């Protein structure tokens, strides 16, 4: 790597030259601490800083960032703020440079995020290697410090009265014009300084087999201890340079029509992070949330994003935690007293890249073509995209979902309940329980909503070919399975015996009742119905009892059969157990999971279960793949 020298006496002139072309940000003092802030002159720069309150992540993944402005329920009025001109970050530590490389995978891989991308492309990074360890850092555990070897345009190392300046990019090369080349002695001094620093770093996590260790210790007394300590204030995640989670909400002005849709940093440490409509919280316990953070940093992130470190050892979480909760200490405590080792298969979600032509955040307009009431609170809407070309090009697999939005109210993930064989429209069957779904319930035929999608992995209709199919649905869980029924119906000769088991709370809670006769007429198909209770005065000629009571009636046997199920988690849990007891294997069982699938594009983090992003890795999963996830699914 090319290297030059910058005498400290010339730093002022160097920075002044940079300021002519860039808006320069760097570490500046704030009281007793440091922050990244605007740099007026080299004197402001505190290159001797230990760490900053927030990481330089804030210049790329902004704490609050407008995705777009709107005027009316579907009219996008303008894009969010993009960077104007070039910015330059001066004095970024190796840990933070490496953290950005990790974040790149989140924001640039699946559905590249236009805002992050623009900021990344328009930012020059001049890093500073660490010649003195910071108080709480443990970067050397993850090879993310004290020196950096990639991710910068220039990297400085303090060797006394001058800096050795390494060039990391063509852009960096332009910036060193006029500097003298580093001598052999300068490079020796650089290596010596960095080696000395490395030796002084005493805080270490043994990163070898960390994933296996943690997965074996999902249950460990340490978590209970931490639960008592932790204040659940979310500071650890707020200051973390690799945390990427955010929430998206619509804000309107008092016209109630115009407004903006910003994203705001959010945190898995918050109780409401995994809250969905009807006030259900997927991760209510503090111990579970602490585990989510620590596991995400130390193992899930690597599983999710091709071996990128989710922790760069910057030590901010330790420095800012009121209770000094410390990943180094947590890992050491577990290593000291581990559960007996057992073989752990770490699940690696499949990687994919989708490059949409437009911003992945901008929905397409879709017109409501028909509305059909299914039950008291559930309705099937038939949509078609307003732009015929978009509708024509729109294809989807059975079991996937769209994000439906009404600007000013918000966005909600809803599975598609029609089959892609119908080309001119698609259906969503929606229960009115939250802001968006309640607003939808007020709309009429001809009204327009915003839709983006389809997202996710659907039912294994290809794998099911040539096999018998058992379909078990509960309540509104029939909606994402209806496409399977339609799909098989249209290709009946490609599938073996087909059994549909459907249960609901009462006869009045059953969906698609008008289609039952048609389904019964599909050759080699049996439909069994059951309800939990029959209210007085309601006629019911079928089974009474939970859906698993139908198992005794069904003809399906494990041999050559694929089972697909969707419904409340508790129902799926007993369905899976019942089928396993009847000899089905986890390889034959497919379930559709639900979480708060807020963005749909593997960015906002709300839908994570262990290393899984339900929105992109699911919502349909083979049971064998998820049965050992650290958070108990079923």
């Amino acid at each position, binding site marked *: 790597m090319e290297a030059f020298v910058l005498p400290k006496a010339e730093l002022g002139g160097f920075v002044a030259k940079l300021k002519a072309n860039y808006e320069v940000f760097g570490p500046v003092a*704030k*009281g*007793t*601490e440091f*922050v990244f802030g605007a740099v007026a002159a080299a004197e402001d720069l505190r290159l001797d800083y230990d760490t900053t*309150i*927030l990481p330089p992540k804030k210049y790329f993944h902004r*704490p609050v960032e407008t995705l777009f402005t709107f005027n009316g329920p579907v009219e996008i009025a303008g894009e969010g703020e993009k960077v104007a001109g070039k910015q330059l970050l001066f004095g970024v530590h190796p840990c933070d440079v490496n953290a950005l490389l990790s974040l790149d995978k989140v924001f640039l891989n699946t559905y590249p995020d236009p805002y992050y991308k623009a900021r990344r492309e328009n930012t020059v990074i001049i890093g500073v290697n660490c010649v003195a360890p910071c108080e709480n850092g443990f970067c050397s555990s993850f090879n993310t410090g004290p020196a950096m070897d990639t991710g910068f345009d220039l990297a400085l190392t303090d060797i006394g009265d001058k800096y050795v300046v390494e060039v990391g990019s063509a852009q960096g090369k332009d910036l060193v014009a006029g500097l003298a080349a580093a001598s052999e002695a300068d490079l020796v001094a650089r290596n010596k300084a960095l080696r000395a620093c490395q030796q002084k770093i005493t805080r270490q996590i043994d990163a070898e087999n960390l994933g296996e260790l943690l997965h074996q210790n999902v249950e460990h007394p340490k978590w209970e201890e931490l639960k*008592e*300590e*932790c*204040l*659940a*204030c*979310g*500071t650890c995640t*707020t*200051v973390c340079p690799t945390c990427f989670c955010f929430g998206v*909400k619509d*804000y*309107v*002005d*008092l016209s*109630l029509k115009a407004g903006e849709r910003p994203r705001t*940093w959010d*945190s898995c440490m*918050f*109780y*409401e992070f995994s809250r969905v409509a009807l006030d259900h919280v997927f991760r*209510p316990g*503090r111990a579970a949330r602490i585990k989510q953070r620590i596991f995400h940093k130390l193992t899930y992130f690597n599983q999710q994003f091709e071996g990128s470190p989710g922790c760069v050892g910057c030590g901010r979480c330790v*420095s*800012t*935690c*009121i*209770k000094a909760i410390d990943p180094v200490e947590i890992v050491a405590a577990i290593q000291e007293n581990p559960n007996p080792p057992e073989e752990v298969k770490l699940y690696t979600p499949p990687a994919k890249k989708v490059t949409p032509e437009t911003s992945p955040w901008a929905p397409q307009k879709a017109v409501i073509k028909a509305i059909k009431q299914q039950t008291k609170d559930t309705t099937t809407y038939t949509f078609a995209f307003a732009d015929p070309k978009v509708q024509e090009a729109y294809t989807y697999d059975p079991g996937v979902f769209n994000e439906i939005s009404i600007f*000013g*109210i*918000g966005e909600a993930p809803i599975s598609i309940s029609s089959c892609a064989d119908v080309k001119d429209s698609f259906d969503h069957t929606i229960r009115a329980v939250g*802001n968006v779904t*309640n*607003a939808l319930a007020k709309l009429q035929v001809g009204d327009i909503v915003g839709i983006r999608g389809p997202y996710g992995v659907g039912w294994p209709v290809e794998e099911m070919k040539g096999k018998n199919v058992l379909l078990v649905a509960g309540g509104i869980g029939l909606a994402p399975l209806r496409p399977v029924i339609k799909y098989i119906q249209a290709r009946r000769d490609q599938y073996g015996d087909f059994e549909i088991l459907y249960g609901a709370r009462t006869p009045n809670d059953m969906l698609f009742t008008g289609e039952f006769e048609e389904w019964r007429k599909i050759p080699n198909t049996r439909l069994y119905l059951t309800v939990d209770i029959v209210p007085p005065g309601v006629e019911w000629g079928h089974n009474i009892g939970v859906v698993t009571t139908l198992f005794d009636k069904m003809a399906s046997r494990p041999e050559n059969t694929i089972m697909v199920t969707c419904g409340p988690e508790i129902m799926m849990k007993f369905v899976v157990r019942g089928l396993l007891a009847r000899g089905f294997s986890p390889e034959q069982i497919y379930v559709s999971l639900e979480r708060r699938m807020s963005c749909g594009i593997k960015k906002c983090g709300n839908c994570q279960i262990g290393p899984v992003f339900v929105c992109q890795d699911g919502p349909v999963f083979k049971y064998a793949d998820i049965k050992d996830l650290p958070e108990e699914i079923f």
Partner: protein
Amino acid sequence: MAKPKIAVFKFSSCAGCQLSILNIEDHLLDVLGAVDVAYFVMAKRENHEGPYDIGFVEGAVTSPKELLELKKIREECKILVAMGACACTGGLPSIKNFAGTQREMEEKVYTELWDLKSIPAYGIDHYVKVDAYLRGCAVDVGEMVELIKSALLGVNPHFRPHSVCNECKLKENVCLLVNKGKPCMGSVTAAGCGALCPSLNRPCEGCRGPANDANAASLAQTFAVDLGLSRDDVRRKFLKYAGNTPEFKKGAEAV
């Protein structure tokens, strides 16, 4: 559609929250354009009887007579909002709940006790159903506007139920507790104020009440063990604004 009718009522409190409404200059004209302020004694000479679409109640109920009034207000308002710490959690008036019997409190304050009938101070949801809470001493004007907009749209308002620490860190404030050793309650207190006090170098007093899943007992330990606060001081911290809540009660009893 007719503009929604808004009413503002006051019980035992300092009236600061009502004053905050008058301080929303940036939005005042827009708000007045969107709603009809039907009853607001502090601001208007002419006030109209109910029913109202949205009622804002400031203050804690501290007498049987006030309790009857509150119940009537509940009947008259489609949406009832507890406005400010006193109405949400009992606020400052609720300090008396933890300082002896009701009679002892009365004797401490008043000399003429013959027609005095006071009751302990709780948040108004102790007595009636409350549809929304505007927390804080005083309320945050931005949240008030957000609540009005949400009510007009018929959706849940976007309030941040996160800790004050979250908003404080986003402002990159130097931590008053970790770095300066001050007993700041931001870590267990609900945000929404924009970390107002810590940003002005004053520790959070917990006026907005507990954040979701607040671990006040653990913070109380920090106050006592690491900062050396006395048992009484720790108690006072947690009983000052929201001692009626189970979360802060745990903090008060932790050391």
